[in-house]
């Protein structure tokens, strides 16, 4: 099973523990990969505010590079997933637009035919590896660990571009993984809401209210941690949780925000250090200790 790996800017920047934990987990899962080192940033929907076509050209360029290698793209970021899927969806429905974009890419000798699929590790784990095979890589059953899923907007919307109809189960993929590791799902309406990251530098008061509402709901529901496939959600829910909780709830930041690969890694028996769990702003000590006390299967 081989993929063209596109880790995204945040895994290579503000959340380096995502990159290392993802790579460690992918190795255990028997995933082979080749990093797309020449690919540009997806634009995250922000660049597209200024020039949507620019964003589409950059993303189709990435998909063409993978297509040339005969590989699908593997991502570890909800935002990368969504933005690339949207660009892919637009050109797949509109051959004229694709031809326009290919005209730009021709200078570089690239041409996109429209066959590349973009898949988050979350979907790869369930759809390509399969829940049973995934479970076979686990050394621990996380009994008694309550986890709140937090998808990230671009992982769930627009559902049409993300192929939800053709691939049933994507809308509950995170719950499926939490159940696969043996954890208990804390279900709450905020799981598919916005974390507030996109407006962090624009309207911080609103952004912090979102952080406080979601992490507070998980806390009130008795969750041990939140799990997210989106490093942007992680940055906001983790990094700004102390300020958000102090300001809006008058309490302390105590909800660890775990990256999806870190959860898989914990179930695989990997150490705190290996998964970079000590690097979070909100301490992960309690959940790490809870998992350490669980004997291996």
């Amino acid at each position, binding site marked *: 099973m081989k993929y063209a790996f596109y880790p995204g*800017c*945040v895994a*290579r*920047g*503000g*959340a*380096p*523990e995502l990159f290392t934990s993802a790579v460690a987990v992918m190795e255990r899962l028997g995933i082979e990969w080749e990093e797309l*080192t*020449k*690919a*540009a*940033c997806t*634009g*995250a*929907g*922000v*660049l*597209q*505010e*200024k*020039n*949507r*076509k*620019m964003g589409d*050209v*950059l993303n189709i*360029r990435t998909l063409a590079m993978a297509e040339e290698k005969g590989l699908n793209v593997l991502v570890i970021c909800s935002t990368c997933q969504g933005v690339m899927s949207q660009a892919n969806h637009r050109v797949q429905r509109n051959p004229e637009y694709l031809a326009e974009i290919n005209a*730009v*890419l021709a*200078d*570089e000798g690239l041409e996109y035919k429209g066959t590349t699929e973009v898949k988050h590790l979350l979907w790869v784990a369930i759809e390509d590896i399969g829940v049973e095979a995934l479970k076979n890589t686990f050394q621990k059953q996380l009994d008694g660990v309550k986890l709140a899923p937090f998808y990230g*907007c*671009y992982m769930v*919307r*627009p*559902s049409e571009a993300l192929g939800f109809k053709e691939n049933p189960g994507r809308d509950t993929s995170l719950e499926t993984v939490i159940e696969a590791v043996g954890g208990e799902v804390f279900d709450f*309406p905020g799981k598919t*809401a*916005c974390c*507030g990251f*996109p*407006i962090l*530098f*624009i*309207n*911080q*008061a*609103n952004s912090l*209210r*979102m952080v406080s*509402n979601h992490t507070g709901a998980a806390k009130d529901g008795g969750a041990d941690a939140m799990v997210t496939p989106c490093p942007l959600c992680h940055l906001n829910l983790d*990094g*700004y949780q*102390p*300020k958000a909780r102090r300001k809006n709830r008058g309490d302390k930041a105590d909800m660890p925000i775990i990256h999806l690969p870190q959860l898989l890694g914990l179930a695989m028996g990997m150490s705190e250090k290996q998964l970079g769990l*000590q*690097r*979070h*702003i909100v301490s992960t000590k309690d959940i790490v200790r809870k998992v350490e006390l669980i004997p291996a299967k």
Partner: protein
Amino acid sequence: MQTNLKVKRQDPEANGSQPHFQEYSIDIHPDSTILDALIYVREEVDGTLALRCSCRASICGSCGMKVNGRARLVCKTRVADLAPEGEQLTVEPMGNQRVIKDLVVTLDTFFDQIKRVEPYMKPDKEPESGEFIASNESMTNLLTAMNCIMCGCCVSDCTVLEVDDNFIGPAALAKAWRFTEDPRDDQRDQRLKTLNDEDGGIWDCTRCMQCVEVCPKDVAPMDRIMELRDAAIEAGNRDTHGYHHTESFYNSVKKNGRLDESRLALDSAGWTSIPRLLDLVPVGLKAMMKGKLPPLFPHKAEDKQKIRDVYEKVEGERE
């Protein structure tokens, strides 16, 4: 088929009434919509259930409700599509709007937002003769936003309105876009400036796409908001944090092929805004201590000149 409805009941005007859920198990035709099921409950099971509907054909926009946590027109949603095996369906009133009773909300909030964007044509002068003529092309462009039936589903599920009731909201902003793009209107620049400068304006949208997902008429309000941002920038509105954020992101990818996160934070705060820059310090220090401060010299794409070439070519097309 057997259907199980779990309906949120409340009567804010009645003393001592608390919101609660009531369950109904009914037998309906397999082709029934959720609205058919609710009307059946009201007519045959429980006459006290309040709901609003009119055309029953997704034209009037009266029957917006939350089903399984998501706003929908219940006349457009078949029971069998959401609950083919008779699974329980949770029906609640729309969010971000005041409940009058049970499933009926007041649309005051909705129309207050619409009024804020002055949703009427503002030409500078009378037409030379007869009426204003607009090209077919310019009207086709407006079709997306003109399809809005003002049902309020987008407002119901807007994640910004959940935390800030001063946000103009997706429906009103899509409406505003419709007037900025209408060739018969002469207030485009003024409209864009107001939407850009106002608290709760175009830059407060989080781009979460809830409105795009729930709109029953494919208005895609968020896409219209993104076009408003683009248009506001083009019209010279360049003094917002939102503009600096977008511009910094765009230029970072142009320069490095990747995002420079540290630079983005500083650019968005604004290099002359001392309080906002200082505000970044505590988080920056914490991140540094944990070894997760974004690199000051950002990760770059290999062969980034190729990305600059793409930029030049696409920018050239626009001019």
